[in-house]
């Protein structure tokens, strides 16, 4: 799921063309009082305008869907390489979306809530063998023991603690 930079130039051209078509339509409309032969061309231009609007909306909405997928894949903090491809309004959308999602998750069940971005796959085993792909520092598990996650070290850890780190690319599930 890659997100390319918002194609501003292409996009602006589109908006400018739309505006030009609209202006032509306005001019024609001004002349139409009484005469009806210009009406088909006005209607034609109007449908071009609507199509342009639909295309732009579809392109932007598709980007939003990809950004939404990023929240579910990477978590609340996006890598800088991805943020580079997003415009300010998209960052704003992303921030609002993660706020809404967090509020919703906290409200589940009436107490502390449930993080539904975890448990994405049915659990097969309790503990899994993982290899560390990059230095991540210290990591505490449920019974208090602290593990040092150094690059290339292998550990046998509870599955539910590792899910997030596996998705972020810090740990790798070793299937022997």
């Amino acid at each position, binding site marked *: 799921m890659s997100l390319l930079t918002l194609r501003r130039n292409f996009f602006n051209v589109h908006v400018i063309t739309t505006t030009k078509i609209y202006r032509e339509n306005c001019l024609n409309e001004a002349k139409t009082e009484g005469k009806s032969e210009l009406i088909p061309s006005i209607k034609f231009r109007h449908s071009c305008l609507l199509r342009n609007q639909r295309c732009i*909306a579809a392109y932007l909405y598709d980007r939003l869907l990809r950004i939404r997928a990023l929240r579910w894949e990477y978590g609340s903090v996006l890598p800088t390489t991805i943020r580079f491809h997003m415009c300010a309004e998209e960052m704003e*959308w992303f921030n*609002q979306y993660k706020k809404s999602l967090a509020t919703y998750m906290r409200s589940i069940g009436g107490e502390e809530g*449930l993080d539904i971005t975890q448990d994405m796959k049915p659990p097969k085993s*309790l503990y899994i063998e993982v290899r560390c792909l990059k230095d991540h520092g210290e990591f505490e598990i449920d019974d208090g023991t602290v593990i040092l996650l150094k690059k290339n070290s292998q550990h046998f850890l509870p599955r539910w603690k590792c899910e997030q780190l596996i998705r972020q690319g810090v740990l790798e599930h070793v299937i022997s």
Partner: protein
Amino acid sequence: MADGVSDSDLSGGEESREEVTMTPAELIARLEQAWLNEKFSPELMENKSELVECVMEQLTHMEENLQRVRKGDVKASVHRMEIDRIRFVLSSYLRSRLQKIERFFPHVLEKEKSRADGDPSFLSPEEFAFAKEFLANTEVYLRNVALKHMPPNLQSIDMLKAVPEPCLDSFVFLRVKERQENILVEPETDEQREYVVDLDKGSQHLMRYRTIAPLVASGAVQLI
């Protein structure tokens, strides 16, 4: 774990409800049914907040029990797996709902706004708030990036028309739990006549969702 879980303990007491006691096994079975129905249905199913609350309570209960067990005991790992499995089913159920709410957000909001007071709700209050925020967020984004630069008569988009509705004619697999008679099956082509079928208990079918939607809601059939 033989304790029963009572629905009325959790209700706010706003409406008088008959006390329904379920064993944990029945609760989990109901959760799995709701999960499968939600997963395979093309539209958002009825809201089951009480079920979600009961399951969350059950999970907390099980976690507490687990803390008290001696570490290294074999029972602990079995219970742990059980907790993980239930949590997975619950998360998957809520994720399916959220995905459908996001996909069909204008229609879902419209349906909720236009329902009568006595009808069952499709969205929990939290889901409703989420859907409203999603709509507002998306509209603000589209307006600021594109629409405000467009000519005056194109500055708004009708979300109800722009976002596609769920396809109720998609086919679903189902298992019959209660015998049904005289189910009207609509013709797919003009040459076929409408015909009625009887659904026998325990039989499995592949049918158009629209035909059996009310049966799924009432629990007479189970989507698989």
